[in-house]
């Protein structure tokens, strides 16, 4: 039985990598074949992950295989698989959503010149993300962490003719790389003090021996990586720009799976992090700040994809708040449900963008996006789930977060949670009303027929599946809870703060009502209350001037400051001295050459002078 699991794991993770290599080397010029290869590979991975999940649903402890890697380099690093409940759950989420998005992309990306290249990068991403979810040691996680960053760079900058796309790709990579460097340093601190990088060992005995402040330092450093990858507070501005990539990419990477890798790592090392309460406090603060900031930005954005990008940041902030507050199950459950409905949101927006060729929500409304029946219905369902309307999955996961927050001593976090729920509901239904109840419409566009061609059907399929998942997933809360109980002892009978659930629901409904009042009503002039206060509007629209700060920092400190200084030093100081030296010798040469052409008497005099000097030197040296 053990071999079957290992075989399935290897198949699930390495098949997409094989597909990537095949496409890049051989089938680069044959798009259809590469698409089939990639989708086939991810389908097999999906089947394996589901089988693994079902088989190990009741398994007692984690299933783990590891071999010694780089032994000869003097380090003891374990490499292998850690297929515990969390790993398998993440494996299944990534596999399902990758499969759905790759099928969706058959329609969306049809006719794109870089079609096979797109599928190659998608398979590369699938391999990296799948292997990350079942990695055995922290170093292995770091390696696939970087590869995921690389595939996000390649996919964001997929349409590289557009300067903005390659710029966004570069920005994304450098920002995540800043986070990764913190993670890398955290890795060293842990390796040097705990002597081992295995995930099980760190969660278990190894971490006990570490002194307290080293524990906090390494936790903070590793959290730096999470901040980078999941676009949390300081390093968040790359995610909205990442929307330059194709929409399926945004759906897969920048909403459901890649950005969730940070939260997954948090959950993976949850026991290790919870050893230092001070660190958890800081994580809670960062999660809250990024959640609130992102939701304010979402309220004013006019680009549909950017709205969902800000929403992703804020939902990730929610998850980190939940985990930091000790709600292990709440965080992981929200991660699962969020992956579902956020992917659905993006894919539906993708259909609208694909057919109406615009991202602006007001234009989408004007060009009549109502006539696409399936995407409209599924986007409404997804928006409702996002705002936490029962009976959808979003409500259950948000409710478990609110419970976790309520359990905290300081009520401030709960208040922030409520504000978040309100804003989330407001901005998601703002988009709905603007798109589906436009003020002025272009008649001939609105009444055109819904195009039922093959591409459309390829896109509609995944929407239906995801919509079903969003609706049904809520009811799987209980089975999921005792499935995950295997890892952390979750107090199943946590005291029900039912008043907080009702408060959260009421706030969500108020949010929707405000959105309806401002955008949905018959005579509403569709202008948000924020837009009326220009300074606040610009603050939010400019992403709290974070981008300016970064550009200023890179421009002044890096470009104009240090590198200019060092370049001058290199040019003037070092090269200068050497050229001066060379010039000096050449000048010396000219002088001594001239001395050779002097008249004969002076030469004889010089000879005699030297001889006299040597004689005197004798006496001088004698004394």
């Amino acid at each position, binding site marked *: 039985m053990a071999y079957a699991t290992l075989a399935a794991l290897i198949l699930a993770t390495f098949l997409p990598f094989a597909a990537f290599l095949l496409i890049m080397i051989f089938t680069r010029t044959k798009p259809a074949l590469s698409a089939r290869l990639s989708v086939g590979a991810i389908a097999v991975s999906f089947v394996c992950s589901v089988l693994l999940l079902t088989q190990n649903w009741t398994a007692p402890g984690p299933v783990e295989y590891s071999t010694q890697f780089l032994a000869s380099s003097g380090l003891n690093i374990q490499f292998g698989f850690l297929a515990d409940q969390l790993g398998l759950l993440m494996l299944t989420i990534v596999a399902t959503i990758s499969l759905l998005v790759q099928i969706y992309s058959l329609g969306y990306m049809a006719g794109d010149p870089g079609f096979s290249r797109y599928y190659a990068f998608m398979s590369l991403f699938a391999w990296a993300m799948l292997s990350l979810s079942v990695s055995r040691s922290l170093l292995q996680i770091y390696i696939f962490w970087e590869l995921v960053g690389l595939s996000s760079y390649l996919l964001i900058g997929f349409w590289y003719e557009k300067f903005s796309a390659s710029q966004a790709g570069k920005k994304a990579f450098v920002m995540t790389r800043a986070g990764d460097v913190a993670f890398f340093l955290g890795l060293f601190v842990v390796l040097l003090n705990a002597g081992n990088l295995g995930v099980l060992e760190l969660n278990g005995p190894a971490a006990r021996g570490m002194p307290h402040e080293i524990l906090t330092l390494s936790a903070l450093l590793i959290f730096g990586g999470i901040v980078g990858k999941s676009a949390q507070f300081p390093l968040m501005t790359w995610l909205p720009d990442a929307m330059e990539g194709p929409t399926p990419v945004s759906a897969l990477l920048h909403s459901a799976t890649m950005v969730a890798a940070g939260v997954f790592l948090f959950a993976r090392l949850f026991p290790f992090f919870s050893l230092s309460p001070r660190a958890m406090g800081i994580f809670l603060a960062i999660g809250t700040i990024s959640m609130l900031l992102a939701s304010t930005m979402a309220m004013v954005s006019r680009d549909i994809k950017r709205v969902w990008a800000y929403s992703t940041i804020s939902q990730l902030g929610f998850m980190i708040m939940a985990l930091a507050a000790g709600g292990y199950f709440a965080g992981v459950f929200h991660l699962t449900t969020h992956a579902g409905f956020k992917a659905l949101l993006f894919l539906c927006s993708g259909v609208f963008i694909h057919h109406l060729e615009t991202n602006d929500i007001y234009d989408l409304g004007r060009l009549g996006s109502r006539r696409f029946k399936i995407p409209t219905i599924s986007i409404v369902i997804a928006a409702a789930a996002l705002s936490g309307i029962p009976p959808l999955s979003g409500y259950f996961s948000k409710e478990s977060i609110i419970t976790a927050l309520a359990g905290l001593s300081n009520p401030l976090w709960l208040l922030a949670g409520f504000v978040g729920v309100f804003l989330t509901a407001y901005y998601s239904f703002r988009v709905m009303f603007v798109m589906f109840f436009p003020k002025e419409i272009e008649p001939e566009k609105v009444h055109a027929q819904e195009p039922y061609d093959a591409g459309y059907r390829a896109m509609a399929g995944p929407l239906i599946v995801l919509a079903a998942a969003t609706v049904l997933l809520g009811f799987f809360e209980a089975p999921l809870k005792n499935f995950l109980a295997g890892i952390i002892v979750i107090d199943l009978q946590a005291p029900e703060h039912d008043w907080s659930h009702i408060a959260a629901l009421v706030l969500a409904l108020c949010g929707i009502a405000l959105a309806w009042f401002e955008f949905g009503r018959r005579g509403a002039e569709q202008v948000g209350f924020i837009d009326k206060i220009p300074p606040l509007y610009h603050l939010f629209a400019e992403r709290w001037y974070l981008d300016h700060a970064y550009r200023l920092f890179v421009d002044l400190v890096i470009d104009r400051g240090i590198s200019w200084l060092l370049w001058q030093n290199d040019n003037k100081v070092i090269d200068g001295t050497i050229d001066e030296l060379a010039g000096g010798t050449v000048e010396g*040469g000219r002088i001594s*050459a001239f001395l050779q*052409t002097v008249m*004969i008497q002076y030469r*004889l005099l010089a*000879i005699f002078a030297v*001889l006299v000097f040597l*004689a005197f030197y004798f006496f001088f040296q*004698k004394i």
Partner: protein
Amino acid sequence: MNWMIAAPEIFYFAAALWFLMLSFFSKPDARREHLSSLLLASLGVLVCLASVGSQGYIFIQAFTADIFSQVFKVLLSLGLFLIIALCGNLPDVGERRIQDFYFLLFTCTLAMMLLVSAGHLLSIFVSLEVSSYSLYILVSLRKNQDFGLEAGIKYFLVGTFASGVMLFGMALLYSSSGTTYLGDMARVLPGMIDQPVVVIGLVLTLGGFFFKLAVFPFHFWAPDAYQGASNQVAAYIATVSKVAAVAVIARVVAYAGQESTYFVHVLVILSVASMTVGNLAAIAQKDLKRLLAFSTIAHSGYILIGILALNPTGWSGTIFYALALLAMKFTAFLVVVELAPEGQNLQINDLAGLHRRSPLLALALMVSLFSLAGIPPTIGFTGKFLVFVAAIERGYIALVIIAMINVVISLYYYLLVIRAAYLLEPSIELPALKPSMPIKLLAGISTGVIVAAGFFPYPLIRVAQAAAQVLLVGR
């Protein structure tokens, strides 16, 4: 007293006499003179080779023949043969003076052979003067008088001045040691080396030989003599007279010089001075021969390092270096001679396009210049390496580092020459050079020797060590 010991000298004396007779009785014909001189020179080499093993003294040690002197005689005769091989068409020496030219060449070589095997101050003095005077006239023999004459005057004046200094030095040495035989001096001097008269006398005596080797204070004649003299004579001065100078300095210092810090300091000062002055002045040169003159001055500095080490590896290193100098300088001058059919002075930029005109000559020039610079796979590097090993054995690390820095400076101007040969394109399209078969052969062999001796120098080192043994025995 069997006369066979002095067989080489007798032969060269006869050859000189032959050309003297020719100049009186027959009409000068360049072709015939060149062939006969070539024949005589090659015979001379054979005689010297034959007499390598001969040992013994004539005129009570005034003329000593030992392995040291015989090895150097072979080098001198070989050098003469090579130079005469270059004198195929002597455009620069007038038709009328061809015979005198060869007569003087043979006399000068004869004098140098006597100098090499001289064991007595007087024989050193006389043979040195004879070789110098013949060189003064050879330098002035150039057809376009203004160059030749000026060089001749300057060479003569500095030369005689130096011989005056040498004489005074010898007088001081004689007055302190009471004997003029080098062998006796070696036994008498050790005790009193720290007396001023002895040591200054020694330094002044060496002054005369430093003139021949073009060491720092006495180097003023070299640039003008090289530039002024015709290419073949300059080649002769650069190779053969340097070898003789090294031999006599080695012998005098080995016999008379003793372990005295002052004496070593003097040699260090002179060595560093001549290296630096030579290398620096060479950077600003436009005329190729003048550049080679300054490089010779620099090389005399490196040779002095070998001498000042005063230990067996030092002597063998110096002898090997003299041999290396002969090979390197000859190849460089071969290219100079070939490139100046009318015997005119070559500017560095006249080398332009050499790699196209004649790849073999360009390669020969490059290999010889890299060897002069001391880049490893060449004989020049082995010479420098042996000399540096000797110096560091005595602990003079700073001197070796200064010498290596000088190597770097010297590479700069050698690279300028190579740049001219390989990179520059001539303004007017020059005809492809077709050197005659013997010259091609000569260039090939000499380049081969330079590189082979760089890779596998052991046979030559063994010869140098054998010669060096004699200097130690004399102590």
